[in-house]
């Protein structure tokens, strides 16, 4: 099953490469990865998604925790959580039928058109990964020129939070 793993790590030289290297070294796949400093600039929050059963997920969490730079490691998928991903997609939109259909689609999915040229529309859409997949499928026949996805961000629902 898909796992969303959240890591709080020291914002230091080499910290990210250690996390990424661990996955390669231990034979786990990373499906998505996103990382940025937090409100505390000395810390980075990293979210990655991978596939694995319970035993594998437990081992991944333990291995990540063993890295000297990591402060917290949480498998968000074990509890209620919210998942978001951002999609930017550039679609060929030369004829007016396509432009109308695309605008409808964007509205249905609650996205935004963020850039327009005579021949293209660029769409921004946020949601869980399944929603983004569905949108891509819906507009595929119009002629997708480029797809950029941010990778999954996750946060747990309710009172739980990850902080040092």
């Amino acid at each position, binding site marked *: 099953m898909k796992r969303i793993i959240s890591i709080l790590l020291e914002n230091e030289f080499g910290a990210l490469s250690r996390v990424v290297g661990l996955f390669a070294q231990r034979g786990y796949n990373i499906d998505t990865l996103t990382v940025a400093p937090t409100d505390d600039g000395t810390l980075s929050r990293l979210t990655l998604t991978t596939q694995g059963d319970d035993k594998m997920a437990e081992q991944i969490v333990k291995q990540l925790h063993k890295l000297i730079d990591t*402060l917290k490691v949480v498998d968000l998928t074990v509890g209620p959580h919210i998942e978001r991903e951002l999609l930017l997609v550039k679609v060929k939109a030369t004829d007016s039928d396509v432009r109308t259909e695309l605008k409808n689609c964007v509205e249905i999915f609650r996205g935004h058109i963020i850039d327009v040229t005579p021949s293209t529309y660029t769409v921004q859409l946020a949601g869980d990964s399944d929603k983004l997949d569905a949108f891509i499928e819906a507009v595929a026949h119009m002629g997708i020129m480029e797809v950029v996805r941010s990778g999954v961000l996750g946060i747990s629902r309710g009172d739980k939070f990850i902080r040092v």
Partner: protein
Amino acid sequence: MELLSGGDILIRALRDVGVKHIWGYPGGAALHIYDAIYRQEDVVHLLVRHEQAAVHAADGFSRATGEVGTALVTSGPGATNAITGIATAYMDSIPLVVISGQVPSNKIGQDAFQETDMVGVSRPIVKHSFLVTKPEDIAATIAKAYYIARTGRPGPVVVDIPKDVTGPNYKVPYEFPSEVKMRSYQPSDKGHRGQIKRAVKALLDAKRPVIYTGGGIVIDNAAEHLIAVARKLNYPVTNTLMGLGGYPGTDRQFIGMLGMHGTFEANTAMHHADVIFAVGARFDDRVTNELEKFCPLATIIHVDIDPTSVSKNIVADIPIVGTCTSVLKEVLSFIEESDKAPDSEAINQWWQQIDEWRAKHGIYTASRYEPSGGDLIKPQDVIKTLYKVTKGEAIVTSDVGQHQMFAAQYYLFDKPRRWINSGGLGTMGFGLPAAMGAKLAFPDTDVACVTGEGSIQMCIQELSACSQHNLPVKIINLNNAALGMVRQWQDMQYNGRYSQSVYEESLPDFVALAEAYGHVGIKVTKFDELEEKMRECFAMKDRLVFMDIHVDRSEHVYPMHMPGGSMRDLWLSKTERT
């Protein structure tokens, strides 16, 4: 406050963290550091002949003493040559700090002369690594590096320092941190009390228990606590290759090493056990054989400092994360407090069974190989003679191959830190430099490097370093004129096709070679000369003696696990199997 250059700060910080010896090899990017070494006398540098040996020597020193070993190398090839040594230490959880020079900061990334991304290259084989970017950070980084190396599950730490950071022109105040605090690194110590109670209950309920311990007992200096628990329970104890000496090898309760070349009684007892008390061991594939067939009846109690080792290969029924010492102490006190005692009737029956196994196929109770005589010297008899001549009190290092297994089987280690070998990585070339490290630490103890004509040639250049630093180790070369373990596998699985495992007539005259380096060489080809010549060898306290002993070329190591089998599925000789 005194102002010092980065190079001086580094050496001062090493002194203040307790380092007395550095093994290393100079080169361009490390020259400011070497100049700082020249200016002082607190920290002694020992020059090796290849950087791999510097790290192995620091490693041998650490294994013999329990202290953190230190190696210093230059950038590029110096750093990459150190890699095998670092990986060796990593696999066996040995605390080391390896300091590497790096090209100047403004050249990093330019493909500069002798530039290698050392932090990147070493990343998968270090506990942690640092790139120091300014002299002000050196002292704190060194303090952290040693703290990380020796605490928790120990391991090697790399500190990569660009040349400009150690340069003489920029001086900063020196201050060594009084303590190390890292919010992201707080190794656990005590095991969970509730889990320990559960473990004690399972132990006291056991009818066919085995205590299975590994290198963790040695690393954590927990031997006395293991002995106390084992004696209290009167349960059989088996050690992994890395754990030998953690429990006395001559003790009645010791049933030998387990695993691929472990004893019949240890492997068979494991297979039939109802409770396995694993302490500081990691269920390595060389121990378990086929995981699906591993110990089908056993409740597994697993004590380890490293949570990732627990339930990695074998799922633990009662996992306990903590140091061997703290957990064993608690186990003992819970046993003492308990109103329950071990089931003595069941345990007696269990011992009866184990003693039967011992008598039937044990390697100590009956000779498992044809006797030596005339020109035929069995490698096992060389180890037995070594044991006799050194009264079992030598520090024995080994390389990797058949000689390593014979040493592990036939030299009975009664104390920890006397058996020093590369168990996890299996590094040929480890033995001689490791012996140098041990000899430096214990100049009055006999240090024997049990090796083969294959392994010894991988770091033989260190015979020169032994001359320079007066390290009179004894080299026990089991010369069978072939890569013995490779040949054994080729015999067993490749129908005797000896692909690249023989040297034909190319082997050097080891006696002449030893003499060329200023040492003593002794060749032994007759069994009746073996003991006498070995006594001569060890009588020369101040000389390095290279004993080139020509042993049976066809011998195999037995017992040996059958691939894909359970622990009890063993070859007992070339013709017998369980």
